[in-house]
């Protein structure tokens, strides 16, 4: 009976939330408060797929859901609330029947890296995808090895792991685990001979700290590594992107499946590959997958096109406190051929908590913007001086760089002055402060 009431209350809170236009994790939070073991009392589908990692979780999960649905499978996933246990509970309880049966073929869970262990106390994923682990939100998460230590206890021995073979730290999860499938990107036009970036987390082995060597790297420390001490090295892949051409916007999976990229970023390549790998493991044909992800446009708002005054703008979301996310977007902008203005906004470091922590700016490779077609750089927001200080230590011509503490004043000015291509690189926390002044493109 208790189960019935908890589910009822959860559904009611969600209904009211929907009326007032707010999707949140509150229903699940209340349900867990009323009945802490509610998730063990509900009947979940046989297949539970979980996805975690520093970057690409939301995009990967969105594509997995789209593919599985195209294959005729009924999917429930936590696309409204948070990726912590409250959000997962909200998704499950608001979709299950009053008797507690989740009428779906697949439960798909985007899981926060640090709190995976809390979600998976109540149920165990059959497939667990780990995309990558890098320096991310140090203020909250600590460094990537501490995130690794937080995920490891959440992995059940019976769970099938799908690991990114190109990430030396993620690959460590395979130690002592039998059931592992690997995905990775073969050497292709975008690869370099050695890791890139301001810092080199691939210099030393995550297991023994002996020096590592690289046969090639795709970005930062993601690539084909071998430890000179313990032999830890890139594993052979079960699913591989065999060729990727970001300039043409095409990638090939396993030598035969061609996919066009709506977003020509290396992240998108890995997210597509991870989604491909897990869906193949779930028995979906490569034809079905290719149909869904070919030119797939993400709905999660990571890329927004807009206009302001004479500017034709594109906003790329780059979580603050995540240097690899920034590097990826900066590399994307640097690879463009036409002249442009680049805006970096840092007004609030986080939307969830206050911090004045800006040391992560020194981990970002802003020198990527040191190319002729980037004609002007606007550093904007409360922390524009932290940005300007950081930029004064790049090779970028100071004449190109302007700083503006007041976003609103700058937006008003841009409505009447200037024109051309504009790329805005910023975080969820600051995105709306500028976008609210712009016209969204239909």
């Amino acid at each position, binding site marked *: 009976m208790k189960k019935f009431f908890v589910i009822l209350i959860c559904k009611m809170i969600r209904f009211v939330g929907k009326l007032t236009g707010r999707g949140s994790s509150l229903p699940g939070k209340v349900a867990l408060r009323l009945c802490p073991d509610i998730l063990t009392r509900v009947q979940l589908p046989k297949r539970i797929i979980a996805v975690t990692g520093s970057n690409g979780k939301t995009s990967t999960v969105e594509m997995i859901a789209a593919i599985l649905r195209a294959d005729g499978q009924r999917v429930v996933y936590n696309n409204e609330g948070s990726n912590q246990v409250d959000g997962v509970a909200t998704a499950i309880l608001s979709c299950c029947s009053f008797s507690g049966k989740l009428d779906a073929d697949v439960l798909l869970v985007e899981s926060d890296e640090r709190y995976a262990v809390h979600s998976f106390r109540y149920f165990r994923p059959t497939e667990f995808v780990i995309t990558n682990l890098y320096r991310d939100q140090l203020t909250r998460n600590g460094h990537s*090895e501490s995130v690794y230590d937080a995920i490891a206890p959440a992995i059940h021995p019976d769970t099938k792991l799908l690991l990114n073979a190109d990430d030396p730290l993620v690959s460590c999860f395979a130690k002592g685990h039998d059931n592992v499938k690997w995905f990775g990107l073969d050497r292709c036009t975008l690869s370099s001979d050695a890791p890139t970036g301001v810092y080199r987390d691939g210099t030393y082995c995550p297991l023994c700290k002996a020096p590592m060597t690289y046969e090639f790297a795709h970005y930062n420390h993601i690539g084909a590594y071998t430890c000179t001490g313990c032999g830890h090295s890139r594993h052979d892949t079960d699913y591989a992107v065999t060729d990727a051409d970001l300039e043409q916007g095409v990638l090939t999976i396993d030598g035969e499946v061609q996919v066009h990229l709506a977003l020509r970023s290396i992240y998108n390549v890995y997210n597509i590959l991870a989604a491909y790998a897990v869906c193949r493991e779930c028995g979906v044909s490569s034809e079905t997958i290719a149909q869904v992800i070919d030119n797939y446009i993400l709905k999660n708002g990571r890329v927004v096109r807009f206009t302001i005054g004479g500017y034709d703008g594109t906003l790329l979301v780059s979580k603050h406190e995540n240097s690899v996310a920034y590097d990826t977007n900066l590399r994307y902008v640097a690879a463009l051929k036409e002249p442009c203005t680049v805006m970096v906004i840092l007004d609030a470091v986080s939307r969830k908590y206050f911090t*004045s922590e*800006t040391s992560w700016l*020194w981990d970002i490779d802003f020198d990527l913007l040191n190319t002729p077609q980037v004609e002007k750089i606007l550093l904007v927001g409360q*922390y524009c*001086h932290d940005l*300007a200080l950081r930029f*004064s230590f790049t090779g970028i011509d100071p004449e190109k760089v302007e700083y503006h503490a007041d976003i609103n004043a700058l937006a008003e000015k841009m409505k009447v002055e200037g024109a051309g291509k504009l790329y805005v690189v910023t975080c969820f926390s600051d995105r709306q402060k500028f976008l609210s002044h712009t016209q969204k493109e239909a």
Partner: protein
Amino acid sequence: MNCKIIHFYPHLMNLYGSYANLTVLRRYLELLGHSVDVVTVAPGEEVNLSDADFIFMGAGTERSQKAALRDFRRFADDIRTLADSGVPMLFCGTAMELLGKSITDEQGTYEALGLADFTAVQSARRQVIDVYGHTELFDAAIVGFLNKSSVISGVERPLLTDCALGWGNEKSGGGEGVLIGNVMGSHLTGPLLVKNPRLLEHVAAIICSRRGEALSTPLPRIPHMEESYIAAEQQLRLRSEK
């Protein structure tokens, strides 16, 4: 003059933008009219420390710290001699813990260099918090951020005598870091010398005075550094007064 800076383990110990402490110090010394050589040392590499003007090691993960310690022990005598003769040094984050007597984690206890009598005990529990505090070195407040998994006990002379906001070595509000003569250790990120122009000037002043060089007046300023400090100082002071 030509300054020689020794940078220990730049790739192994480089969390939280630590390297930028040296980036700004180098620029500052250059603005003072000096030339600067930065000599990097990787584990196993030989280096001559005898004529060093400044020694630096950045923050690393707890595992990287143990690897750094395994190599750094061979420099224990040299470092102690240089510290006794007043050579300024900065050890950031987990590197600070190498200066104490020992470091303990779940696997065991590791003997450290023993420049001071403190001990560090690491656990899975992390302190992650903004810091606002004061030092005996000058009047201006020190700002930064702390992300550490250790409790440090037995520090006689902390770098920050109090933390109005944030965690100290052992507890909320207590002293943070360590001062051993001109050797500084601190878990503060920022990076410390980037966020705190007074501390940068302090370090540069020691480097110059040991070489008998007077500082030029007025002191040079790195553009945007003061503004960045003022912004953080105001925000953190407000929060420390709550």
